[in-house]
Every structure is written in structure tokens, then in C-alpha cells.
């Protein structure tokens, strides 16, 4: 198998409170091991405080592990070099308020050693990709939450990394903005980028992730391919279009005679998110 995009080996992270008088250390992550294969979208789930952000920060070399090692495409996270191939969007990002969107992407591009015309082209391309061309010359200080997340994605992508690490990319963003970010992630996936993300929006995770890990109190309690984890092994779903009552009757009879059992029957519903967006986008059009 090829080198995994991320390899975490027996990671433990304890935070020692600065004051000696306080109680002992907090174990944010306990003996966690997992691999994220190249090309996958991996979802890290878990309640608040379960250690998701800490895990990501260790992978990015921002936090030193108490025990264990992490690698990005085989390079130790402690080496600055490992960060060449990764883009990071932190939780609730803020950028330099006095910079415009364009200047922000420029700044991060320069940090990655991109210069001149290549940087200008790259910046324009990325701002278009995240849909911020119109806001390119506005100060980031005036950006909405959703725009901040999108400029955050643009800076994460500036050196064309092979891996994206996204800490709650849709937190605090309205449904339409959240949908756009989701669609962007799906676009990256189609282009072969590896993504590690954590999110509380389980329906979105279900839509975009190939594989998930569930963390609880610093430990990885479940891990595997999403469809396998949530499939009900002994059941099969059948969705029919334009089925006549006669056909249904016939099917039911056949099923009964074969010894299987119909567990449920009904009309499939579209999900609320899509429905909401459909309605509000129509409303927008008719208002204009």
C-alpha cells in the first residue's frame, strides 16, 4: 500500500495546567492510532472536548505530543518540511483584519515560497474557486463568518497541497454557506485531495466522508468505512418508481412466501437541508 496521507501512531497528549496547585494533567488524547489513506475524505467525530482539535494540531506540528508520533505523507510532523504538503483551516479562523481577501491569500502564498505572476494567478484562481472574487479587495475585518471560512479554505489551498485538514469548516455558517463549503469539499475530493475534517453536522459528514473515526474522551472508540459502520447487515432497501399497486401486491406475496419480512414501507423523503435550500433559492429568484 502507498504511504498514508496521515499516520498517527499511539498518540497521547496531556495538558499540564500552568499552576502546580491545580489538579493533575488533562489527557486530551489517549493512545490514538489511525491512518488516513491518500485520496480519502476522513471524518473525525466526537463531542466537544473529545480531542479532535488537539489531534489535528499534533498532526500539524503545532502541539508537541506527550507520547507517540504522527506523519504526513511519511514525514514526521515535527519537521517543518512535512507542512509543504498540507493546508489547514483552524476552528473559527480569524485573519489579519487590515488585509483584503487578496492580500491574505498573497501573504500565505509568500509563506509557501510562491512569488510574482504565479502568485497572482494562483490567488485569482483560488478566490474564484471559493466564490470571493467580488470581495477580493475588501478588508477581511468586514467578512461574514461564511466568507472567513472560505478565505480560510483559499489560504489552506494556496500551495496546492495534497492534504487538507479542516477543523469544523461549517461551524457557525448558515445552511446555504454550509452547503457551499460541503460542495467545495466534494470538489476537492473529486480532484483527488485527501481531506481530514471534523464536524458536528452528521448528515454532511455522512454525505462527504469515506471513512470516519469517533472519538470520546480522548479515545478512538469506533473507526472504519462509513457505509460499513452504519449499514444494517441483514436488511436491504428497494426504492421503486411508478410501481403499480398490483406489482406491490405481488411482491409482498412473494416476500411472505420466501420467509423474508417487510420491515418498513413508505415514500422516500428528500432531506430537509436540500428541501430548505430549494425553497429559499426559489424565493430568492422570485424576489429579484
Amino acid at each position, binding site marked *: 500500500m502507498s504511504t498514508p496521507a496521515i499516520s498517527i501512531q499511539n498518540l497521547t497528549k496531556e495538558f499540564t495546567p500552568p499552576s502546580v496547585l491545580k489538579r493533575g494533567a488533562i489527557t486530551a488524547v489517549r493512545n490514538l492510532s489511525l491512518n488516513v489513506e491518500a485520496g480519502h475524505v476522513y471524518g473525525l467525530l466526537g463531542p466537544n472536548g473529545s480531542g479532535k482539535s488537539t489531534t489535528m494540531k499534533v498532526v500539524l506540528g503545532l502541539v508537541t505530543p506527550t507520547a507517540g508520533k504522527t506523519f504526513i505523507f511519511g514525514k514526521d510532523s515535527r519537521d*517543518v518540511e512535512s507542512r509543504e504538503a*498540507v493546508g489547514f*483551516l483552524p476552528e473559527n*479562523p480569524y485573519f489579519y483584519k487590515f488585509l483584503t481577501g487578496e492580500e491574505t491569500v498573497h501573504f500565505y502564498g509568500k509563506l509557501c515560497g510562491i512569488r510574482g505572476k*504565479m502568485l497572482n494567478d494562483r490567488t485569482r484562481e483560488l478566490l474564484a474557486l471559493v466564490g470571493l472574487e467580488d470581495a477580493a479587495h475588501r478588508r477581511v475585518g468586514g467578512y461574514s463568518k461564511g466568507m472567513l471560512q472560505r478565505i480560510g479554505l483559499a*489560504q489552506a489551498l494556496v500551495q*496546492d497541497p495534497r492534504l487538507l485538514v479542516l477543523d469544523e469548516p461549517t461551524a457557525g455558517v448558515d445552511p446555504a454557506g454550509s452547503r457551499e463549503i460541503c460542495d467545495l469539499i466534494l470538489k476537492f475530493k473529486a480532484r483527488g485531495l485527501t481531506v481530514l475534517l471534523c464536524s458536528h453536522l452528521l448528515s454532511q459528514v455522512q454525505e462527504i466522508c469515506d471513512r470516519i473515526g469517533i472519538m470520546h474522551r480522548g479515545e478512538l472508540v469506533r473507526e472504519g468505512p462509513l457505509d460499513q459502520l452504519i449499514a444494517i447487515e441483514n436488511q436491504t432497501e428497494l426504492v421503486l418508481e411508478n410501481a403499480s399497486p398490483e406489482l406491490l401486491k405481488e411482491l409482498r406475496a412473494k416476500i411472505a412466501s420466501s420467509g423474508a419480512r417487510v420491515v418498513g414501507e413508505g415514500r422516500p423523503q428528500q432531506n430537509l437541508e436540500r428541501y430548505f435550500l430549494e425553497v429559499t433559492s426559489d424565493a430568492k429568484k422570485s424576489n429579484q
Partner: protein
Amino acid sequence: MTATTPSATAHNSAHKLFSLGRVSAIAGNTLRDLVRQKVFYFMLVFALVLIGTSLAMAVLSFQGQLQTVMDVSLGAMSVFTMLLAVLSTAMVLPKDIEDRTLYTILAKPVARFEYLLGKLSGVVLMLLIATLLMTVFFCVVLWFWQGREIANISTFAQPHLVDAEVAKVKAGTFTGTLFGGIGVIFLRAVVCSALTLMVSTFATSWLFTVIVALMMILIGHLVPIARSVWMDPMQAGVDMPWHLSLFLRVITVFFPDMQLFNIVDDIAVGTHVAAGIFGQVAALGGGYVAIYVLVAYLFFAWREL
């Protein structure tokens, strides 16, 4: 994008351990941030007002002394560059940590050393701009003073002495020593800035950083006294136990010897200072900056973000 612009990929080339490009990107960004702060203009205007006032003071004082102009102006420049250095450097790290911009920067292939150096360079550039602006204004003030002096001489001096007197005034105003002194003022501000950066790598707040840095600078004024005591306790009339002696040695390494920069006071009263002295002060000041940056890096490299 992944397919169309493979040239944008930086990760094919070998990673450089130190890149001036990254440092200057951070420095430029920091400078931009700092000169957009109100505190910068506030301090600058205050300093300029004081320098301007020095002229009025010199004119109003009966003899119209050049020394008054020099004293007040160089004093104002000293105080404001030092304060500007401490107050703005103390802001630099906590702001990036609070806004989490530090995460996005260090998640790029940027070494922590490059980050610190970039931040310090940004502050130093800001101090340079502030010093240059003050210097230009100071020169205008001096030029006014000189014009007035020459006019006085023409009116009051005996005709055959006018030329000699005017030449004397001209030679005594814009001297190399004066500009060397301004250089020393700038260097002192840079040392204060490096010291503050070091404090801010282990401090948790802006206020704490400012207080500790200012205290260290104050204590720095006592360093020569401490040094004379540990170098020659007998002569100083002190019978010192070994641990106190050790303590004093540590102090003299960690606290900047601020007396070093007191040649500015001599310059203000018109003393000529040899170029060699400036060289020494520059070397020692540079040494302090190097030590503080190194210690700052050691703290910062181990710090949890």
C-alpha cells in the same frame, strides 16, 4: 486546479531551513499591522510636539541655547522610541495567538525561528520609520534654530567676527556625533524590542509582558553598579557570599546594560564622541539582540500554542 497548475506545487523542491522570503513576508505583514495602530500615531505626534516645543523653549529662554533643543528633543526621541518598542512588541505575539493567525502561519512550512525573526524585523522596521520621521522633524527644528542664531549674530556681533561666529554655529549644529546619537537611540529601542519579544514568549498577557519588560529595562540601569560590585567586591567595600556573587553575574547577562546607551546624554550636552565608541555600542547592542532572540526562540520552540 490540482491538474492545471502543477507549477504552483512548492513541495517538489527541497525545503530550505531558512528562507529570507518567508521572514520578509512576515516582517512586511507585521509592519503593516503596526502602522495601522492608533498607538503608533499617538506616540509619534506626541514626540513631534515635544521636539517642536524644544524650539519654543530655546527661544524663550533668554540665551537661546542649542543645548535646550538637543536635550529636550533627544530625550523625547529616547523615551518615545523605547515606549513604542515595548508597547508594540508586547502586542505582536499575543495578538497572533488570540486570533489563531499563528496556527495558520505555523501550519505552513514556516519554522518558529523564522516567525520570531519576521515579527521582530517588522517591529524594527516600524521603529526605523518612527525614528526617521522624528529625525527629519528634529532637523527642521534645528535648521530653524540655526537660522535664528545666524540672524542674531549678524545683528549683534562685531562685523569682523560675524563670519567666524556663523561658521562656528554651522559646524556645531548638524554634527556626525548628533546623528550617531540618534543611531544609538534607535539601537536602544531595538534592544528593548528584542527584550520584550523574549518576555512575551513566556508571558501570557500583554500587560504582564509590558510590566516585566519595563522592569527589566529599569533594572538594566543598575547593571554597571552590580558589575562593579561583583568584579571587585573588596574595593566596593562589600564582603559578598558566593551565591550573591553568582546571582549578580546572572543579572548582568540577562539584563541589558542600559548605561551603555547613556552616551546619548553626553551628546545632548555637546560632547564629541569618537566613532570607535559608536562601534563598541553597536557591537554590544547587537550582542544583546542576538542573545534575546536566541532565548526567545528557546522558549517559543517549546511553548504549547
